């Protein structure tokens, strides 16, 4: 842990990239707080969520952040928990990232849940044990505690044994929490397009992919694309893992879509067909999120690290669309297709577009992550410590 003055804390090398990043971070953090103030003033009116589409961008962004966190935790555990040497160097940076992203996620969801204090009280007093949200929330709380302790024994009071124990706990609880988050959607019997085993499993897979993307981005930024050899070796291996994971994901998605369309089951087939026709899916999710990174890795045999860093940027944009699609596509099909008033059209696919406040808070959450990462990078030494 570095002890630094406040002045030094906000002093950085004024490279064009750094200046752009600083500007983006400040703008996003400002947006977050502006959105938060607007929400506090106007409540849920500030959001475009409706009775038919009760969840929106903020839930998507929450999922986006916690998936990132879980992903970083899983990837870090390759070295740190499972002891694969090349990956041990990423432990601290990844765990810091995991803490930061989940904290941003909690900040965002805190502005979505109507009564967070009530939640803390009645989560304990009258727990809903059949509720995936209860398990997900409780386990994520526990997870955050574990990875904080893990980080503490990694970066502050170095204790390899304890950090490994907490790392294992964090990993297991994180996996449980994360597949429960998948179950939040998978348990929805009323939503045939989401209901079933797919999401709880897919969530783990997509978390690992997200973790890889973030590692590439963090290292790309850390080393300004001039990777030391040790890092380069690790990133090439990580790229191969990423390639394999993407192949599995593409395989998963393909079968999910095919089984949904096959037989034209009511509600399910129409919903998925509608979803995959939208550019959010075929451009956002598929092209940016899977195909571009996959093609880059495949063509370069994972050796084009720089290209993979850029592809990871596309990948993260794609991951955003995956999370957005997860929420929106689940809610696409209206629960009743009957009209309620004479002068309206019969309900078809439910429409939703986030409000400015939702964008401000949701994307502002990324600013929180960037800012916290900047601080973490300044305060802690996130690189591998020498004696290790």
């Amino acid at each position, binding site marked *: 842990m570095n002890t630094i003055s406040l002045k030094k804390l906000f002093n950085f090398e004024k490279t064009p990239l750094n200046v752009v990043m600083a500007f983006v971070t400040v703008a996003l953090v400002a947006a977050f707080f502006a959105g938060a103030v607007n929400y506090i003033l106007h*409540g*849920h*009116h500030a959001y475009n*969520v*409706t*009775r*038919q589409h*009760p*969840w929106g961008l903020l839930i998507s962004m929450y999922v986006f952040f916690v998936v990132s966190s879980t992903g970083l935790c899983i990837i870090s555990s390759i070295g740190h928990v499972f002891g694969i040497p090349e990956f041990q160097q990423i432990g601290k940076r990844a765990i810091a990232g995991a803490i930061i992203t989940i904290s941003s996620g909690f900040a965002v969801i805190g502005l979505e*849940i*109507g*009564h*967070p204090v*009530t*939640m803390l009280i*009645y*989560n304990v*007093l*009258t*727990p*809903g044990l*059949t*509720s*995936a*949200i*209860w398990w997900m*929330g409780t386990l994520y709380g526990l997870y955050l505690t574990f990875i904080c302790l893990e980080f503490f024994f990694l970066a502050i009071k170095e204790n390899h044994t304890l950090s490994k124990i907490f790392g294992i706990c964090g990993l297991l609880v994180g996996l449980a929490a994360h597949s429960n988050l998948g179950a*939040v959607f998978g*348990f*929805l*019997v*009323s*939503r045939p397009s989401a209901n079933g085993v797919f999401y709880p499993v897919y969530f783990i897979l997509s978390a690992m992919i997200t973790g890889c993307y973030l590692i590439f981005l963090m290292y790309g930024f850390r080393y300004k694309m001039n990777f030391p050899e040790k890092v380069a070796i690790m990133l090439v291996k990580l790229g191969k893992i990423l390639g394999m994971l993407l192949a599995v994901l593409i395989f998963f998605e393909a079968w999910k879509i095919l089984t949904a369309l096959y037989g034209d089951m009511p509600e399910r087939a129409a919903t998925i067909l509608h979803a995959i026709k939208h550019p959010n899916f075929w451009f956002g999710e598929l092209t940016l999120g899977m195909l571009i990174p996959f093609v880059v890795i495949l063509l370069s045999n994972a050796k084009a690290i720089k290209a993979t860093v850029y592809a990871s940027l596309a990948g993260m944009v794609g991951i955003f669309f995956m999370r957005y699609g997860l929420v929106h596509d*689940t*809610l696409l099909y*209206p*629960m*009743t297709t*009957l*009209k*309620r008033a*004479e002068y309206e059209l*019969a309900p078809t696919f439910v429409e939703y577009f986030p409000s400015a406040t939702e964008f401000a808070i949701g994307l502002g959450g990324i600013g929180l992550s960037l800012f916290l990462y900047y601080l973490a990078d300044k305060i802690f030494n996130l690189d591998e410590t020498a004696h290790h």
Partner: protein
Amino acid sequence: MARYGMALNYKNCINCRACESACKEENGVLLLKDHYRIWVGVKEAEGQFPNISIASQTYHPSQCQHCDNAPCQQVCPTNATYYGKDGMVMVDPNKCILCTYCINACPYDARYVDQRTMTVDKCTFCSDTRLAAGETTTACQATCPTKVRVFGDLDDPNSEISVLLANKEYRQVKEHLGTKPKLFYIL
């Protein structure tokens, strides 16, 4: 202890929406977007003028189905949604954290966010208004011009609703989901 349900002679329904306005007045439902506890679903006529299929236009008075196996109850993280003593699915506004998971989970679009309490609200079969005051009918039932609704105790074999259900064919909405709804549409 009763187990309340409602049978609907929905063929009587003329889509006059008296039930909707009675419900809003009885239960103080705010006159805002998305705020409705009950509604009349309209399946609009099919065909081309003048060859309209008469049978294709139908009216379906709808509201919370007070499922015996309610998805909204299962997903509630704080048990704010609970089964009331007479089998009604109820929301305790003090426990509701407004995660709106229940709104996602309800297959019937029966729930909404009440802007006054900022908690999830829904049909209560008028239990905290009319039934609490000793009435035996819900507001929607009492006011209905063509007497679509029969509200009563499903566990009492002599109640009008039990007799009706024993003697008439009926259908339920989305019962394949295993929700065991307590609204019965008399054919």
